[in-house]
């Protein structure tokens, strides 16, 4: 299941269906909005997505993960819009018979999705400036 949503993510709602009797491992990654970023206090995050393309790109990655590993369930949920400190911004979970496959699938999705899904993050700081900064990772190959 792939979903991009404005409303808060309730992980349990997405994880419960993965707990089949044939499943031996459910690996979950929960990305959360932390209070401090680069030494500054964060007020909130703003996520912006090119939604249809982001869903397609994540869908392609999910298909690839299902080809590579024997999975019984896969969930990717990403927030857009205003995300408060302490909230979940992304949830990735994989269910498999054995833990190795579930771990590897989650790791793969996390790493590749961050590179190819058109979703942008802006940090809005809490200090006097109320400065807001679009965050771009240092390992961005294209920006070299």
């Amino acid at each position, binding site marked *: 299941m792939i979903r991009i949503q404005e409303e808060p993510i309730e992980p349990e709602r997405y994880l419960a269906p993965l707990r089949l009797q044939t499943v031996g491992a459910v690996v979950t990654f929960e990305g959360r909005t932390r209070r401090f970023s680069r030494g500054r206090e964060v007020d909130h995050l703003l*996520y*912006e997505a*090119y939604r*249809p*393309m982001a869903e*397609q790109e994540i869908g392609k990655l999910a298909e690839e993960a299902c080809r590579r590993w024997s999975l019984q369930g896969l969930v990717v949920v990403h927030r857009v819009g205003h995300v408060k400190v302490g909230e979940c911004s992304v949830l990735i979970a994989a269910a498999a018979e054995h833990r190795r496959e579930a771990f590897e699938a989650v790791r793969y999705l996390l*790493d590749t*999705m*961050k*590179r*190819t*899904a*058109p*979703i*942008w*993050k*802006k940090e809005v700081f809490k200090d006097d400036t109320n400065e807001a900064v*679009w*965050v*771009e*990772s240092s*390992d*961005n*190959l*294209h*920006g070299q």
Partner: protein
Amino acid sequence: MRIIDTVIQVLLFAEVREAAGVERLTVSEAGTPAELFEELVGRYPGLKRFRSRLWVAVNQTFANWDQPLQPGDEVAFLPPVSGGARK
């Protein structure tokens, strides 16, 4: 023919959207994404500095800057994403 089929839709996101002050516009024609972006820079000079860092998508798929454009195409200019490297 619907109007949407005779023009090229242009979408801007994040920093690029903010620099232009617009998120969506249409142009009547453009040969390639590169030419289209030059035209946008003419309208919104603040976009010029992004050129070397942008990716382009045509109809929601990553594309080359010299890919020929057709009426009805949706062209999106994508600044670097938050998580890291693009392939």
